């Protein structure tokens, strides 16, 4: 599914913003001057990640503490092996382009 890219203002250093876009809840953050964008949903037990602490390029889920690499989406530890979806962010001056074009919204499934 092809979706439109997201354009937005750059964020202040060490801040974050949650944006609804094309069926995704996206968490955009600026940590140490670098912007990252990930889906705002923990792949472990489906919680919003936006209140998680960000340190060393990782965000920690506030519920059980699973940490995801903001760059690759890969989780650490063994609570989940499913990466969180990441989106490339390009910055031009004060503007960001969050690239969504290869994204697919997740299908809801219950086990």
């Amino acid at each position, binding site marked *: 599914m092809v979706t439109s890219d997201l354009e937005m203002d750059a964020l202040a250093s060490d801040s974050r913003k949650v944006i609804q876009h094309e069926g995704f809840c996206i968490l955009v953050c600026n940590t140490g001057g670098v912007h990252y964008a990930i889906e705002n949903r923990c792949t472990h037990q489906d919680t919003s990640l936006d209140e998680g602490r960000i340190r*060393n390029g990782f965000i920690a889920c506030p519920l059980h*503490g699973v940490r995801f690499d903001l760059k690759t989406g890969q989780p*650490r530890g063994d609570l989940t092996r499913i990466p969180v979806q990441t989106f490339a962010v390009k910055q031009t001056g004060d503007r960001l382009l969050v690239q969504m074009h290869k994204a697919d919204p997740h299908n809801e499934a219950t086990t």
Partner: protein
Amino acid sequence: MLKPGEARAPGHTYQEAIAKDASQPPEAFLDYSYEFLGDQDIPYTHYTSHDFAQSEMEHLWPRVWQMACREEHIPEPGDYQVYDIGHLSAIVTRTESMQIKAYVNACMHRGTALKPPGDNGYCQNFRCPFHGWVYSLDGELLELPEDWDFPHVGAGTHSLREILVDTWAGFVFVNFDREAESLTEFLGVLPEHFRDFDIADRTIETHVCKRLPVNWKAAEEAFMEAYHVKETHAGGRDFSEPVTTYDVYPKNVNRFIHTVGSVNPRMAVPPSEQELMRALWGRRGPAEGDCPIVPEGATARDVYAEVIKKSLGAQYDMDFSHYSTAQTLDSIEYFLFPNFFIFPGLSLPMVYRFRPDPKDPDYSFFDLYFLRPTDSAKLQSPPPEPLMLDVQDSYTLAEGLGFLGAVYDQDTDNMAAQTRGFKTCAKGGQTLGNYQEVRIRHLHQRIKEYVEN
């Protein structure tokens, strides 16, 4: 006729060597505390036997203080670090009141581990991923889903089990035995010997955790003596042979300190101070420009120490002028039983932690940290993620280790061979030198006291 343990290498002692330095070394460096601890072989079964490993797991590890992390791993409330030793696991955390606490890493409902092995992260509270029992950062049972079904459960009986935790020099130590002696008592002479160092103000610059193909004790032993240096690190050459002191302190501390850049008294024709200077230049730490000329009457050691203090001072924006030559250059290694090594020196700022692999006594885990001095008043960066290396991986993959990466490979290359040899050697045990390998004997003496008690 000398009694066993009284013999020493020809030439001067370490203490005599550093007494010639231009700067006064710390008092503790001049201390002699060797004790003859016997000369019986150490049985190989203490390394290879599953029963012995099990005995250590039952009687040793649950009862000793162990370094779980640095304070900088958990700077803010809700930060946590998991420390695993064998089948035991602890969560170390910072509470809302900035207290450090440690808990057994298991839900009080059906025992699920609350956090994965080795995990480091942040959470607002400890929430079991199985049924959602929630504990505060203070360990108190806060939420019990469907509590109508648990009239027999409450915060009084089902809060997290706290274990002992305390800090020294920025390190967080835990002890699973709630009746254990205090950390201060356990540390013995360490705080006094570290009076002239600012270890609490150091911060982790590099952290590598490697799985080693040898029992945890043999892994530690590879770093307890400088006897191996000439063969393992210098291809048998005499020049690098250091002058070393070996000392044992009650009950849990021992050390070696060896010179860097002093004349080896065993050489038939000793090098000149300028030749020593050329050998040192660029070997440790930064070296820019031309090799300094050692003035008449001065030593290469003292000249090089000044260079190191200035260059590291510029690199870290700190003043190291109060460090003596010995503190700056020498390889100063203290051991705290059972698995913690710390090098307080300026140019060799390492920390080691060894842990058994609970699945196989022939393997162990080695956490290697480089601590860098830091000005605590300035902004500190969080500690780096550990680089995980498996048995076959080279330490040279860890950029932060610099030239020491290849040196650690040399140390660990011997280990698989030692494990194989333990099993084929007909003699039955390791033979130890009375002086240079006394720290190994001290380690086994302490283990015996725990295992047989």
